[in-house]
């Protein structure tokens, strides 16, 4: 290697190395919202993340589908216009443990993760309002849940049609149950999102959500059981308000006239209205707290 002669001192110059401003079309906030939403839904099932994040949600989805598939299989083999073995509206309550675990694990994945790694400032450095971000996350979680709760119902529907029952009544039943599943998804998503947003530790959020859902259901079921035995149907009915699963079941009973899956549905039309109002209240309060919490974190 030869020696280079010592170079002369260079003049200092600032080069315009090409930071270019973007002058093209900008797609606006709706596009951002939609992308964030789609990404959120995919992340609910681990799509777009490493393999180990797919295991649990996919497993839960499979378990969720098994009873529906079994029932359809039986119906097809027996090929009888049998009365529906399981009313659509009962499916979610029976599978509530699976649904609870799903929301308990995926809500923190969508919400606590961004908080823990302080990604919020990155998101908000884009033309994305804080409220939009929150709604996108919430909607994604609710949609993920809706897929989980709605898909088995579709399978059941197809099975019943195949075994030859009347399409008209089946379709109305299905639509009602899908409506119920939608309401359940929104309520669960709101509650789980609020709990996740209060902590950056994923483990603690998971424990807190599951605790809330299981404890509320156990308490309600106990009270309902006892009250029903004593013939106190009013108390049994109103007690159903205090757990998301029983609350939504009650709403389905009063709105769509389905069979109650709990010892007692909401008493009368008044009860039904109160149930609906309570559900709306829960969602509004949760969303409000969620927005407040995020505003605090983002420092606005």
């Amino acid at each position, binding site marked *: 290697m030869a020696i280079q002669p010592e170079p002369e001192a260079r003049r200092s110059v600032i080069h315009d190395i090409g930071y270019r401003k973007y002058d093209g079309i900008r797609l606006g906030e709706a596009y951002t919202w939609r992308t964030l939403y789609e990404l959120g839904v995919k992340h609910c099932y681990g799509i777009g993340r490493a393999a180990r994040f797919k295991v649990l949600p996919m497993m839960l989805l499979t378990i969720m589908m098994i009873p529906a598939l079994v029932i359809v299989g039986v119906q097809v083999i027996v090929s009888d216009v049998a009365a529906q073995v399981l009313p659509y509206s009962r499916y979610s309550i029976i599978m509530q*443990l699976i649904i609870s*675990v799903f929301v*308990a*694990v995926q809500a923190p994945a969508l919400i606590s993760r961004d908080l823990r790694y302080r990604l919020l400032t990155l998101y908000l450095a884009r033309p994305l309002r804080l409220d939009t971000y929150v709604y996108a996350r919430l909607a994604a979680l609710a949609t993920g849940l809706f897929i989980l709760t709605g898909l088995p119902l579709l399978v059941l529907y197809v099975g019943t049609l195949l075994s030859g029952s009347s399409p008209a009544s089946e379709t109305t039943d299905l639509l009602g149950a899908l409506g119920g599943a939608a309401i359940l998804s929104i309520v669960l998503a709101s509650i789980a999102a609020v709990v996740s947003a*209060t*902590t950056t*530790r994923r*483990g*603690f959020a*998971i*424990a*807190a959500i*599951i*605790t809330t859902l*299981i*404890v509320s259901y*156990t*308490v309600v079921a*106990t*009270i309902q*059981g*006892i*009250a029903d*035995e*004593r013939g*106190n149907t009013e*108390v049994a009915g109103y007690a159903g308000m205090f757990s998301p699963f029983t609350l939504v079941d009650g709403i389905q009973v009063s709105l769509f006239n389905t069979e109650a899956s709990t010892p007692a549905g909401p008493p009368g039309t008044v009860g039904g209205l109160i149930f609906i109002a309570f559900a709306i209240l829960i969602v509004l309060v949760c969303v409000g707290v969620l927005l407040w919490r995020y505003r605090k974190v983002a420092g606005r």
Partner: protein
Amino acid sequence: MTNATIIGLTVRNGLGARRTVVLVILPVILIGLAITVRALVGVDQDATIGVMVGLGLTVVLPLVALIAGTSVLAAEVDDGSIVYLLAKPISRHTIVVSKYVVALTATILFTTLPIMLAGAIMTGELRGAIGYAAGALLGAFAYSAIFLLLSAVTRHAVAAGLLYVLIWEGLLGGLLTGVRWLSVGAWSTSLADSIVTDDILTKPVSPAYAIIATLVVTVGAVWLAGDRLRSFRLTGEE
């Protein structure tokens, strides 16, 4: 076997405001339910079992123990601050036992005492209160030890603990009778039943077995946790 400084550090760091809120809410709900049901139906055996066993021993007890048992160790393991305790000439077993004492005390405070109160409310007699409290005490010892061990062994202690409680204790415990021998829930229920009543309730296992099994599990889990900490690996980044 314990170190006062570690106990002090654990209490200050592990049990923050948020955790304490959750730990308080659960027993409050239990007591609230007990009062409500008692008001509804008076003293009733089925109702009592539903509340005390169904909610108290099977749900509240393990969940509180899970939160307490993981909050004394899991966070420090997760962010690596456990290294400040480990880079000291202190026996790992001392560290673990000190943390166990904190977790156990918190669990007893938020389960055994409230359960005793709820038991008194529901059964209206001292025997009921003491019986359920004894069962809860047994469960507190065993659960706290198990969840402490999980914290020392895996970074996903909470999820693992939840799976254990929901699937092993909850689902399978209800379905398969053979599981009873290895289920903390069954042990605590058995002890409670044996004191509270003389006859009706099925005692899954004998109370003597329950006590011995709890002792074995507690001592074993705590010792294992200490042993695992001796081989703790500090890797630079996540």
